[in-house]
C-alpha cells in the first residue's frame, strides 16, 4: 500500500524554543491516525507545518507518491473565520478549491460536480444558501469540513474538529469523518482532545508530546503509561 504522507525527522521551533523534534511517521492511503496528548505539546503545530502554514526547522515531509504533490484538506482549529462576514455556506465551501489560474473567477464544471457530490455525501444540501454566520456550531464545522474536502479529499488534516460542540453534533461529525475514511478512502490525520472517543475510532493512536511518544493501536495504547497519565487528568 502506498503512503499519502511520509514524514521524516521533522522538527519545528517557535522563537528559538523547540516545539517538537525528530518526528517521523507515515500515513498510508485510507489510513487513520488520531493524535492525542497534553495541551501545548505541539499537536496543532505539527498540523500547521504539514499544511504549509508554518515552516519546519529541519526534516522533510512529502504528501503524495513523490511524483505529484497531493493537495491537503485542512480543517483549522478555532474559528479563525470572521463570524460577521456575510457569506453563504456555498460560498465558503467553494472557496476550498484551488483555482486553475489566479485570475480566473469561475468554477469549472468538474469542480462544480465534485462540490455537488461532496455536499450530498455530507448531507448539507439544505444549508447551502443559508448564511454561514447564522449556522450552528455543528453545521459550521460540517461546512468547513466540506471546504476541506474541496481542497483535497485524499488527505485530511483535522485539528480538533469537534472542539466546543455538543454531544449530538460531536457524534454526527465523528460518524461523517469515519465514513469519509471508510467509503471515500480519505486518509485522516486528526488531532483530538477527546481521549475516550479517540480510542473508539478506527486506525492508530499517536501520543504526541514534543515528539511522537507512542504510535500504535488503541488496544496497545491502553497498556501504556501515557494512557494512564492522560486518564488521570480526565
Amino acid at each position, binding site marked *: 500500500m502506498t503512503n499519502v504522507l511520509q514524514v521524516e525527522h521533522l522538527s519545528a521551533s517557535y522563537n528559538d524554543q523547540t516545539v517538537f523534534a525528530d518526528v517521523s511517521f507515515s500515513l498510508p492511503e485510507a489510513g487513520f491516525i488520531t493524535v492525542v496528548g497534553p495541551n501545548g505539546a505541539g499537536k496543532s503545530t505539527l498540523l500547521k507545518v504539514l499544511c504549509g502554514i508554518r515552516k519546519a526547522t529541519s526534516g522533510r515531509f512529502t504528501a503524495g507518491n513523490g511524483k505529484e504533490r497531493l493537495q491537503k484538506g485542512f480543517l483549522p482549529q478555532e474559528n479563525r473565520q470572521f463570524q460577521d*462576514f456575510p457569506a453563504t455556506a456555498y460560498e465558503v465551501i467553494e472557496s*476550498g478549491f*484551488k483555482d486553475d489560474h489566479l485570475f480566473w473567477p469561475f468554477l469549472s464544471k468538474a469542480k462544480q460536480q465534485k462540490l455537488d457530490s461532496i455536499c450530498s455525501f455530507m448531507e448539507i444540501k439544505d444549508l447551502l444558501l443559508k448564511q454561514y454566520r447564522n449556522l450552528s456550531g455543528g453545521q459550521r464545522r460540517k461546512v468547513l469540513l466540506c471546504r476541506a474536502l474541496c481542497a483535497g479529499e485524499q488527505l485530511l488534516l483535522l485539528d480538533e474538529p469537534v472542539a466546543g460542540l455538543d454531544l449530538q453534533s460531536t457524534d454526527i461529525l465523528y460518524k461523517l469523518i469515519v465514513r469519509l475514511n471508510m467509503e471515500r478512502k480519505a486518509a485522516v490525520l486528526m488531532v483530538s482532545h477527546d481521549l475516550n472517543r479517540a480510542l473508539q475510532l478506527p486506525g492508530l493512536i499517536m501520543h504526541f508530546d514534543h515528539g511522537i511518544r507512542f504510535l500504535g493501536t488503541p488496544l496497545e495504547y491502553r497498556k501504556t503509561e501515557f494512557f494512564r497519565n492522560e486518564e488521570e487528568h480526565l
Partner: protein
Amino acid sequence: MIDFITQMFSYGFMVKAFVCGICLSIVSGLLGIPLVFRRMSMAGDGLSHVGFGALSCAAALNQTPYVIALPVVMAVAVVLLFLGERNLLRGDAAIALLSTTSLAVGVTVLSLSNGMNTEVNNFLFGSILGLDSDDVLLTVVLCVLILMLFLLLKRNIFAVTFDEYFAKAAGKKVRLIKFILSVMTAVTIVLGMRMMGALLISSLMVMPVLTSSRLCHSFKCLVFSVPLISAFTFSFGLFFSYAADTPAGASIVLCNVTVLVLVYLYASLRRVG
C-alpha cells in the same frame, strides 16, 4: 430639479468631479470589503495621511502630485503589509505611528516652503476645483483597471478575507493576493485624496461596506451592492454640496453616515418586528 442638475453640470469642474467621484467611490467601496473584514479599516486612513505627506513634499518641490504620491503610498502600503505579517509592529500601532509622522512631515514641509495656506486645507479636506483633464483620464483608466482586477480576483479575495489561514493551507497565493490588494488600495487612496481630502477618503472604503453588510446575506450580494450604495451616496453628497455650498468631501461622508444609520435602524426594526 432637472434645471438644477443641468445647471450643475454646465460647469466643467462639476462634470470632472462627478466622473472621477463615481469611479473612485465604486473601487474604494469594493477595496473596503477586505479591509473592513480583515479588521484593517484604519489602514486606509493611515495610508491617506502618508499621501498627505507625499503631496506636501510634491507641492514644495513643484512636482506633479501623483508622480511622488503614488509610488510613496504604494511602497508604504507594501511595507505595512509585511510588517504586519512578521508581527514586527502591531497593526494599529504601526498605523498610528505612520499617520502622525506623515502628517507632521507634510505640515513642516509646507510651512517651510511657502507657509501654511489654502494648500494644506485642500490636501486635508479635499477640493473638487483642482482636477484637470489629465487627472480625470488617469483616474478613470486606473479605476477601470482596478475594478477588472478585483472582479477577476473575486474568489481569491473572498478566500483570503474569510479565512487567510485556510487559504494558505489550500495552496492559494495569499501573499500575492494581499500584495495586489495593498497596491490597489494605495492607488485608490492617492487618486481619491485630491477630491475627498486626506482626512476623509478612508470613509469611502469603510461606510458603504458597513451599510451593505447589514443588508446582504452573501459575498456576491456584497460585491454587487457596495458599489451601488457607494455611487449613490457619492452622487447625493455631491448634489448636496453644490446646493448648500458645503465642502464636497464632508458632504459625501455625511451622506454615507445618514444612509448607514437609516439601514441599521431599518435592520433593527425588522428584527424586532
